[in-house]
């Protein structure tokens, strides 16, 4: 985020910038049941991420979507902290499927080519499928973490290599990669 301009006071207030944001999410796979949320908080109380990182609050995410805080939601890096455990989906008494709503919102963020570690990882992952049919772990890890991130791993890569545990540096793509790529392209066109 850009720093405040000279002469202005940084304020943490937000304004609803998209009154129909909820409908946008409602129309995506995973977002269908958004409207019936009664904010009972069973989702957040079930969330193992929120217990460690309160910035990711799934109930509040739903409230923000319903209120129309589009930019606030999409620019929030915490959106990418969901670990997809789906405890919220299993326990939500209203069958709102909160974890699937995260999927829908991330879809919008990816469509807008948002930046950050989350979108970068998702794109690296998808690129890896396009290129090899399956995941090339070494490459996805490198592209997601970048060199700096990899260095922060310290000796772990070396230890893994020593144990023969390291992901392969080169992976042969599936024979059917052209087929898979054609399928992904076709799905993209259709969407």
């Amino acid at each position, binding site marked *: 985020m850009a720093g405040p301009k000279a002469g202005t006071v940084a304020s943490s207030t937000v304004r609803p910038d998209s009154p129909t944001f909820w409908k946008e999410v409602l129309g995506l796979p995973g977002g269908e049941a958004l409207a019936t949320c009664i904010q009972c908080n069973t989702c957040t109380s079930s969330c193992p991420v929120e217990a460690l990182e309160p910035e990711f609050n799934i109930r509040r995410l739903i409230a923000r979507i319903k209120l129309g805080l589009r930019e606030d939601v999409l620019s929030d890096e915490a959106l*990418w902290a969901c670990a997809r*455990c789906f*405890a919220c989906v299993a326990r939500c008494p209203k069958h709102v499927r909160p974890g699937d709503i995260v999927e829908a919102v991330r*879809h919008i963020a990816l469509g807008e080519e948002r930046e950050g570690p989350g979108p970068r*990882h998702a794109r690296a992952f998808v690129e890896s499928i396009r290129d090899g049919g399956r995941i090339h772990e070494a490459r996805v890890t490198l592209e997601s973490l970048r060199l700096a991130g990899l260095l922060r791993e310290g000796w772990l890569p070396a230890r893994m290599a020593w144990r023969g545990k390291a992901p392969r540096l080169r992976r042969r793509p599936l*024979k059917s990669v052209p087929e898979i790529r054609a399928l992904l392209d076709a799905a993209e066109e259709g*969407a």
Partner: protein
Amino acid sequence: MRLAYFPGCVALDSCRELDIATRLVAEEVGIELVELEDAGCCGAGNLQEYNPEAALALNARTLSMAEDLGLDVLTVCGTCQLYLSRANVALRDPETRERVNRLLARLGRRYGGGVRVKHFLQVLLEDVGPRRLAAHVRRPLGNLPVAAFYGCHLLRAPGAAEDAEDPRAIERLVEVLGGTPVTYSRRTACCGFHVLTVRQDVAVKMSALGLQEARGAGAQALATPCPLCHLVLDAYQHKASRAVGEPLNLPVLHVSQLVGLSFGFDPARLGLRRHLVSVKPFVRALEDTEVVKA
């Protein structure tokens, strides 16, 4: 029994020992694995987020490959199980299936909706069954306390037979293999794998809480049915130890490896050396127990 084997990406890459152990165990109990060599990734949530339709189509393609063989799909990964069976449920809707089939038609494929997706753990307990399984046990786990780490996705996959809040499958399996199951409340917790690259701090703490509780409950090893859980719990355990401020030192076994050990397979063949947390103490304790069957 024949099954269309979908190893997934990680069991063929950093967790190759899972693939190896699974093949050995399957052969031993008389399951013929027909590998879906050309099947693509399940999407693991990332493709689903990027393009839900593409993810559905890619999984429909995998399912159609099994359908062509007339076989059900076998997975060895919680995440593969979740996303393949989620796709399978979505494809039960005739309209959705028709729409996806129009995409598959470009590859000359079609999915009729007649395939089931099963995880190896379920196959061992339900299709092979405790009695036949026990008959193969040559080196019972000797009352060694083993705790389960289920992973979210296996429990939350549509059609899961287990009670997601109170599962018993791995505990039952440990008992069948002659071990002592250790229960603790975080056996259904999340390992954090899916935020490992984006929020490693969170993922490591999540796995640390589970490891710590299991160790506190007296477990000498964890058994997990998911290679993604395994990666976090094993390869990142040193970081988890740092997070909780004490050495955790808890070996983590793939369910297939645990079964293989009890079948009397050589630990080296099961790829136990590839683990970062040494399994040696556990194996030694196991070897000290008497071999009851030749």
